[in-house]
């Protein structure tokens, strides 16, 4: 029973937070100079007062700000996220259309960074005093410090332009018309460079964190006890040290997972990956208010969901937490 009320309380809080985020974002983006009508008129290269007034009336921008907010919020409460002025499509359609590509990219990057990060961090901890450990740490520092867009550009230059091994951009081969397994393979090949690029930074973070965490756990008394009992070193590393060292990693993974919708703007731009991050950036540049608010909503929703999920996983990884709450 307390578990259920805990979750209900959490959900209630989440709804309040979401609504507050929407209202805050609404005022924030209306504070930016320019409105979508002016941007569209600007792109047209010619305009007159009638054109601007027509646009503002169609978009509902001729109403006062509170009226616009009221209309928007009452729409959202009925799960109607409005219409993208610019793309001439319902916001929900646009977001759902782009969401799979982004989740595929960020999901792949998440798995790659977590798996290889923990592996490399464990190795580095076990070889802390040997050169191979230093090499791993040196590489991870390099990946940690290199700007993402630069890595992306270099990856394209080396692997696409010079070696011609991998496609330079896009989600699938244009005009190939692949279906079934060939299509899956085609998408996978296109996924390699962007997912690796996006994953490298977090991989480096996980590597460093795993190593530090494992080294500090390995100093603790229960590890000494395990050694004294004569357990095999591998078992000690896996079951005693790694498992106890995982908590900070879970925290970080929860944060990374929360960024899965909106956190890939640069990678999606460089690799022309048709995802949400690009959609968001373009909506911002064009002051496409409804679309931008819709994407913010989904980003916030995902962050909240993953925070809750992280809490649950904490309890699975470390049963002591359950008792504490």
């Amino acid at each position: 029973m307390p578990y259920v009320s805990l979750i209900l309380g959490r959900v209630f809080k989440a709804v309040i937070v979401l609504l507050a985020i929407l209202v805050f974002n609404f005022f924030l983006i209306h504070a930016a100079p320019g409105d979508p009508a002016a941007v569209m008129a600007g792109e047209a290269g010619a305009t007159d007062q009638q054109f601007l007034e027509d646009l503002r009336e169609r978009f509902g921008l001729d109403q006062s700000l509170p009226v616009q907010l009221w209309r928007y919020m009452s729409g959202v409460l009925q799960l109607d996220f409005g219409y993208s002025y610019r793309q001439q499509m319902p916001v929900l359609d646009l977001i759902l259309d782009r969401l799979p590509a982004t989740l595929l990219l960020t999901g792949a990057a998440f798995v790659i960074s977590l798996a290889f990060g923990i592996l490399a961090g464990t190795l580095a901890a076990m070889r802390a005093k040997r050169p191979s450990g230093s090499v791993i740490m040196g590489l991870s520092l390099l990946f940690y410090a290199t700007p993402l867009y630069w890595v992306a550009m270099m990856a394209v230059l080396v692997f696409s332009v010079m070696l011609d091994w991998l496609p330079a951009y896009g989600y699938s081969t244009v005009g190939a018309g692949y279906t079934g397994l060939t299509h899956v393979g085609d998408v996978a090949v296109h996924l390699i460079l962007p997912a690796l690029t996006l994953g490298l930074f977090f991989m480096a973070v996980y590597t460093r964190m795993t190593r530090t965490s494992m080294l500090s756990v390995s100093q603790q008394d229960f590890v000494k006890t395990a050694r004294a009992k004569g357990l095999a070193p591998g078992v000690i590393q896996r079951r005693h040290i790694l498992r106890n060292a995982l908590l900070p990693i879970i925290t970080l993974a929860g944060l990374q997972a929360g960024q899965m919708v909106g956190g890939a703007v640069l990678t999606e731009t460089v690799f022309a990956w048709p995802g949400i991050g690009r959609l968001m950036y373009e909506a911002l540049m064009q002051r496409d208010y409804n679309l931008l608010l819709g994407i913010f909503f989904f980003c916030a929703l995902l962050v909240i969901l993953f925070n809750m999920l992280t809490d649950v996983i904490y309890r699975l990884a470390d049963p002591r937490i359950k008792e504490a709450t």
Partner: protein
Amino acid sequence: MTLLSSVTGRLTAAALTLSFAAPVLAQETPQAGGVANVAIQPEPPGLMLPLVQNAPTQRVAGNIFESLLRYSTDLEPMPQLAETWEISDDGLTYTFHLHPDVKWHDGEAFSSADVVFSADVFLRQTNPRTRVILDHVESIEAPDDNTVVFTLKEPFPAFIQAFEVGTMPMVPKHIYEGTDFYNNPANNHPVGTGPFEFAKWDRGSVIELDKNPDYYEDGKPYLDKIYWHVIPDAASRAAAYENGTLDIMPAGSVENFDIPRLSEMDGSCMTESGNEYFNPFAMLWLNNREGPTADKRFRQAVMYAIDRDFAKNVLWNGLGEVPNGPFNSTLASHDDDLEQYPYDPDKAEALLDEMGYDGEPVRLLPLPYGETWTRWGEAVRQNLEDVGINIETESSDVAGWNQKISDWDYDIAFTYLFQYGDPSLGIARTYMSSNIAKGSPWNNVEGYANPKVDELFAKAAVENDSEKRQAMYDEVQQILHDDVPLAWIMELAQPTIYRCNVHDLITTGIGLSDGFKNAWIEQQ
């Protein structure tokens, strides 16, 4: 005269055929088949060209939609949906004879009723630029299925320049009549008469156009498909051309510093043609209302202080022209004899001394259109600081830039404007005081008001006698040249980079923006 115009129309058609025949004989006859992979940036907001007026939309939809005419690289009208046309001696009646066998992409026949609907109903409502032109029109009538007659209120010689596809695209009456134009479902699957049909649009990735198999010009188009690749990053677009994925890079696809590298690759060609109708003219808005820029001597000093040749040679790879005044040099009415403002910092300093400039800060707003424009902003800032002007650079995104200019909240600001082939369409709007109104970044935002200039532009626009018209345009150029309402910094070049096995890619003064009708790919 009536007969003569008609003959001219036919002659232009004949000349076109001839000019085609020459390269065709030299190389090979056009080969049918093949696919064009083209870069498009930014992704168009929609493809319904009669509703959505912007450059990327027209790049793609210029293949789907057509207008009555096209224009040669000398801006002479050429036949398209209209086979022939006549202009009456008094300049008041324009009669177009339409091609008889044209069908919309959905199979319906195209007729004069569509022309009347497009011009008189649809575009008057949706296109602000066309609306201004149509203000000169008294009536539009269709005496029979293949004839359309425009009757003007007064002579307006620039009217013959208005039948370009972006200005006067034909809209299918049977689909749009009586509907809410903005919410018509056909907007997502546009129907035109053009050489290519809309096939598919994966938003964020690619727009696919298919050959129109029933196109009314025999054998055309030659290409089977056009893929427009949406790639948001300029460096990635350059890489995609280098590794062979893309074949055609329209102007603006890559940053200027990449142009020499890409155009010098094996099998890579470059042309500056196809730009003549729009001819983007880069300028600095100088706020004539207040601050130092309100003083004519200050504005002249700006012209002397800026090293425009440096910008051309270093930032724009030597492409483009340094203008001598307010008219683009490709316009027939351009005055070649105007004295050029040379780069002369001493003279600029002398002018500033004379006016007693006291170091009051002057804000400079660059155009946020990518790396080249940013660097240009830095170069101009340095030029102006060298002669002692106290510059504060402001930064902004496109929407913010737009807003500041529309609200007249600037001192000096970068922009560029299209010329549209005639001073009364592209230039007068920038200088006439009747065009001063907040809310648009494209009108007389500098706030220049000179009754003589107003009168000359207004009279020249409706003067049917070309010699008298030229005399007025010469006078107005001289006045503006001395008053410097704004600084003319560059006639921008618009280089297209493409694989050399693509032939007849650009055959008009509208270039890639009115379709791939004639383009063909030489198979290896």
